[in-house]
């Protein structure tokens, strides 16, 4: 113990010195001097020219969107495909928890495989692809330069989707690495990494060729995420070096960082771009976004071991993750002030723009999901919620109500600007919104209430374990109802996107942007 502690103290000292050096450098070179002019980077060279809520902004005056359009369109379509496949598996898995004898004839149909298919296909097929689509749409715009090497992401798209298809087949046949969030066989992981290179290279080239001096806050989140995630993914998937409890710490370091350092930057970065862009006014307090970004990097990266509270891991590392989980209040409040105040001062825009409704709703869910996560990591609360369905509800508040719903809005905003015409039937967009919001509310509240009751029953030695199973059944049934509504919403989403792509060419106006 003394050796470890001494090592950690020495290390913290060295790291603090390095961080101080960085801070001095950053202040000296005015990296932190940010003003409202910088916040206006989201608008064109002429600055804000009113809200971007309707067809009048479809013109691509700079030619930037024309270059990005192809990879963005492919990635959105690929993402929607996996969203529908992945959420269907989710509904099947959910039904199986209260109809245990349904679809039991073969191993690929069992709950354990359906659940793995659901998680991986929505995480890598839907969330990652739609997030990458947003990167390819937004980054060239905030850098005011066309996407470089635009053919590479198309190759990346095909590699990524082939890997997903092979992965889905592999899970169904029971070929898995066997850890939550790391089920993909490592051979296919390497294919995903290769596909990732085809996505990252063009974006980095575009970043280096940018025609603005300042990198807008969305750019920080995206540029950091696209180096974080490949590193995480690669280290966690190297075969043969991790085992036992050490492997469990790698597992949760990775799994929580998929949310914290990949999906969250994608969602927050996307919201940071579209909220001011749609409203036509810069973000509320631009310098606050610095705290939000660096706070996220520093604290979110160390929260993972709160998944092992009360487990066979050293106490200090659990405590470290609990402390960092609570520290997450800081960056989350910073982002919340920026995004929610901007929307709250312009509520008229929520009536004008359907995409903004999704994005603003998702941004609020980020705040709630993070607050909930910080509180859930406290030992006193975690002792009830750990090992229960409550955790599943929380995961969906983050990955679904926050990231997915922001992404729905982003897709609805991008598509008309990508094809140069508006959605023919906005009513279907409203239907999508209410299906997923009401469906999610049923999903979330049933699992949260059921999970707490389940946790309390498990802590009470006078109640049998059976009781904790029996009492959750009605809540699991309600979850299936909510999940089915969400899936129906996804089908409406697909109909909307395919509809705008298939509209006759006669009605076309010049192509999309800035």
């Amino acid at each position, binding site marked *: *113990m003394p050796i*470890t502690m001494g090592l950690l103290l020495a*290390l913290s000292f060295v790291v603090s010195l*390095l961080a101080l050096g960085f801070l001095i*450098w*950053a202040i000296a*070179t005015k*990296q932190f001097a940010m003003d409202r002019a910088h916040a206006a980077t989201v608008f064109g060279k002429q600055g804000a020219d009113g809200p971007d809520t309707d067809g009048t902004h479809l013109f691509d005056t700079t030619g930037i969107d024309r270059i990005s359009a192809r990879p963005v369109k492919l990635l959105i379509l690929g993402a929607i495909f996996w969203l529908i496949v992945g959420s269907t598996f989710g509904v099947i898995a959910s039904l*199986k*928890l209260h109809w*245990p004898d349904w679809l*039991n*004839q*073969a*191993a690929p149909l069992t709950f*354990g*495989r359906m*659940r793995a298919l659901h998680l991986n296909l929505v995480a890598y097929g839907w969330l990652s692809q739609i997030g990458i689509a947003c990167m390819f749409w937004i980054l060239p715009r905030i850098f005011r330069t066309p996407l470089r090497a635009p053919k590479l992401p198309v190759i990346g798209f095909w590699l990524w989707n082939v890997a997903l298809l092979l992965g889905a087949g592999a899970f169904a046949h029971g070929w*898995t690495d*066997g850890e*939550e969030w790391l089920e993909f066989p490592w051979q296919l992981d390497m294919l995903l990494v290769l596909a990732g290179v085809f996505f990252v290279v063009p974006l*980095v080239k575009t970043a280096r060729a940018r025609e603005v*001096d300042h*990198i807008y806050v969305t750019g920080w989140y995206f*540029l*950091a995420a696209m180096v*974080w995630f490949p590193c995480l993914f690669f*280290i966690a998937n190297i075969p043969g070096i991790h085992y*036992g*409890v*050490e*492997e*469990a710490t*790698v597992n949760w*370091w990775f799994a929580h*960082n998929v949310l914290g350092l990949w999906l969250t930057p994608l969602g927050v970065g996307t919201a940071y771009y579209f909220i001011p862009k749609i409203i036509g006014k810069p973000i509320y307090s631009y310098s606050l976004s610095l705290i939000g970004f660096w706070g996220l*990097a*520093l604290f979110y*990266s160390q929260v993972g071991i709160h*998944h*092992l509270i*009360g*487990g*066979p*891991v*050293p*106490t200090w*590392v*659990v405590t*470290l*993750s609990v402390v960092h989980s609570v520290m997450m209040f800081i960056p989350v409040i910073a982002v919340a002030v920026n995004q929610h105040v901007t929307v709250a001062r312009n509520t008229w825009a929520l009536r004008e723009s359907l995409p903004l409704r999704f994005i603003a709703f998702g941004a609020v869910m980020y705040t709630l999901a993070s607050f909930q996560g910080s509180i859930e990591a406290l030992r006193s609360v975690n*002792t009830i919620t*750990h*090992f*229960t369905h409550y*955790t599943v509800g929380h995961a969906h508040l983050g990955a679904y109500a926050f990231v997915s719903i922001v992404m729905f809005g982003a897709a609805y905003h991008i598509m008309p600007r990508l094809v140069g015409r508006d959605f023919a039937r906005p009513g279907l967009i409203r239907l999508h919104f209410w299906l997923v919001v009401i469906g999610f509310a049923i999903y979330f509240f049933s699992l949260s209430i059921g999970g707490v009751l389940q946790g309390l029953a*498990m802590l009470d*030695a006078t109640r049998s374990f059976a009781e904790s*199973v029996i009492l959750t*059944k009605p809540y699991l049934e309600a979850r299936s109802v909510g999940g089915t509504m969400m899936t129906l919403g996804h089908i409406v989403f697909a109909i909307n996107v395919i509809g705008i792509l298939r509209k006759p060419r006669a009605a076309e106006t010049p192509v999309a942007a800035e």
Partner: protein
Amino acid sequence: MNRYLPLVVVALGILAFATLMLVIAPGIQMAQRSVPEGLRPYSEQEQRGRDQYVSLGCVYCHSQQPRAPEQAPDGERGWGRPSVAGDYVYDRPHQLGTMRTGPDILNVGARLPSESWHLTHLYQPRAIFDWSIMPAYPYLFEEKPEAAPGDTVVVLPEGFGPASGVVIARPEALDLTAYLLSLDRTYPVPEDALRDDGYARKEDGL
């Protein structure tokens, strides 16, 4: 921020620091501790059964990490003593789990040591517990008109078996059961064992 390289370098530095704290440092600390004397590696059959367990995704409903008595009554439920890092050195991949839709099973071999019980339960959990929501695994078994020599017949209550003939355990079912029976960490833990003691009170000497 206006520069690409510093942004990426610092971002990666922070990730490296987190990796050091969450993975490397605890990894070094755990590797220094002794392996419990009572722990033995899985036999070939048990490992095959473990691979079945992994591939069927049992981990999504069953944890393998009993909690300490200060935190939860896991021990009173028969799930075993609080587990320590050394209990898992032969586990590749780890199956600690984060869910108890079903009970913790790190010591299920000690709690339910009957092969016959497990075979029945795997074939149809509701033949034993009518409230159970565990999937049935009929494809690990086969139906035959009558048992051949060397076949393991599954004992089933009235109404759960086929109308005629018997249910025989396939090798997969026997392997999986062998793994479940091997789950027994009731041996004493070494002095220097590691686990999260965050729920222990001060007067307990921590």
